[in-house]
């Protein structure tokens, strides 16, 4: 039988990065954050509060396994092991299933803190668009949550909707953003925000012979509109940042900016020393968890569990 290649269109590529400028052996406090989401899992390792490494991988059917995988990728080839870590915090949808974590925190607190570290203390509104929920968070200059709105009941306007859509039209999810701008005129948005109804509407449009790029544009603007409703209820303040997978989709981000009339912050590290480091919007939660772990160990609120 002929081999049938199954190409996946719906997930962002995986990645890992290790800071070449830090030797963890000289570090005093090593902390880790593991963010097990519904679609992807991330791990971040901090040495004395400085970013040492991070990884971004996919969540499999086994959450503890995904958590282990994410952390082991982040520590790959560095000689670092779980036994060297002072404190580890789990976060995200699957946070109760992070076996090496000493405690768990909600992703809301972690995203606010992570965004504060990544984009700087001027951040006031964080929009996290995850795999199956989206949350808008208002925070202060220390990354403390002031209030938030979360939609985790429905997949409309979340990454999952975009994945279903990418799979349906067979376009890799990272191409949807750029291609949604290769159109002559902005099409009317997909009228339904429900993923299931939107999918059948897209099938209808395809049958009518509407070009793929126009359909992508229509879907991106529907999503941007849906997110805007959530943001409007909470109130948006500058600096406004988007984290999570959808932040990488400029088709949604630029349309959202246009509707809101507010620009999102540039995707560069706030710390000048970090300028050359890769910027991944998906690691915000894991980074925030690791920062919380660092603060807790540093302030002596929790005991280090380091074994070696």
């Amino acid at each position: 039988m002929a081999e049938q290649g199954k190409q996946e269109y719906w997930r962002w590529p995986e990645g890992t990065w290790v800071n070449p400028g830090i030797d963890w052996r000289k570090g005093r406090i090593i902390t880790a954050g593991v963010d097990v989401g519904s679609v992807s899992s991330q791990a971040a390792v901090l040495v004395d509060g400085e970013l040492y490494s991070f990884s971004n991988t996919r969540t499999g059917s086994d959450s503890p396994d995904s958590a282990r995988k994410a952390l082991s990728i982040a520590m790959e080839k560095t000689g670092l092991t779980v036994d060297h870590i002072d404190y580890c915090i789990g976060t995200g949808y699957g946070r109760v299933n992070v076996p090496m974590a000493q405690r768990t925190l909600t992703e809301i607190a972690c995203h606010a803190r992570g965004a504060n570290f990544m984009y700087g203390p001027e951040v006031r509104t964080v929009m996290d668009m995850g795999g199956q929920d989206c949350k808008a968070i208002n925070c202060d200059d220390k990354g403390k949550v002031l209030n938030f709105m979360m939609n985790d009941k429905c997949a409309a306007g979340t990454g999952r909707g975009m994945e279903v859509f990418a799979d349906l039209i067979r376009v890799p999810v990272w191409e949807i953003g750029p291609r949604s701008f290769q159109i002559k005129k902005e099409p009317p948005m997909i009228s339904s925000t429900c993923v299931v109804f939107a999918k059948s509407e897209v099938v209808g449009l395809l049958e009518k012979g509407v070009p793929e790029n126009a359909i992508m544009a229509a879907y991106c603007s529907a999503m941007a509109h849906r997110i805007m409703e959530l943001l409007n209820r909470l109130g948006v303040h500058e600096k406004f940042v988007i984290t999570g997978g959808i932040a990488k989709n400029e088709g949604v981000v630029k349309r959202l900016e246009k509707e809101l009339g507010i620009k999102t912050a540039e995707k560069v590290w706030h710390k000048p020393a970090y300028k050359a480091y890769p910027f991944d919007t998906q690691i915000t939660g894991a980074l925030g968890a690791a920062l919380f772990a660092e603060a807790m160990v540093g302030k002596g609120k929790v005991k280090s569990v380091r074994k070696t």
Partner: protein
Amino acid sequence: MQAFYGFQDGSGDWFIIIDTDKCNGCGRCAEVCPAQALGVGEDELDPLSGKHIACVTEGERKKIRYTCAPCQPGYGEEPPLCVAACEPRAIFHSEAWRQSFAKK
């Protein structure tokens, strides 16, 4: 800060709102709640503060609309038991129940 517990769906906003600055963690709301939907725990949105405050228990957050319905105007006491029990007035219920259940 205001902690929103609940969800929004096509028929409205179903939220229990707890003002974490006002809440003193006495736990009286948890005692009177007939559905045991409230509990007292560490402030999960500001874990470094070490404060203990009331929250809606994890399992109830996605079905709060139905859990809290028996206490709403038109069905139960007014104000709802947890709101009445809260001395610092830190608990609020969103308007959706009132709008859909109250006798006209």
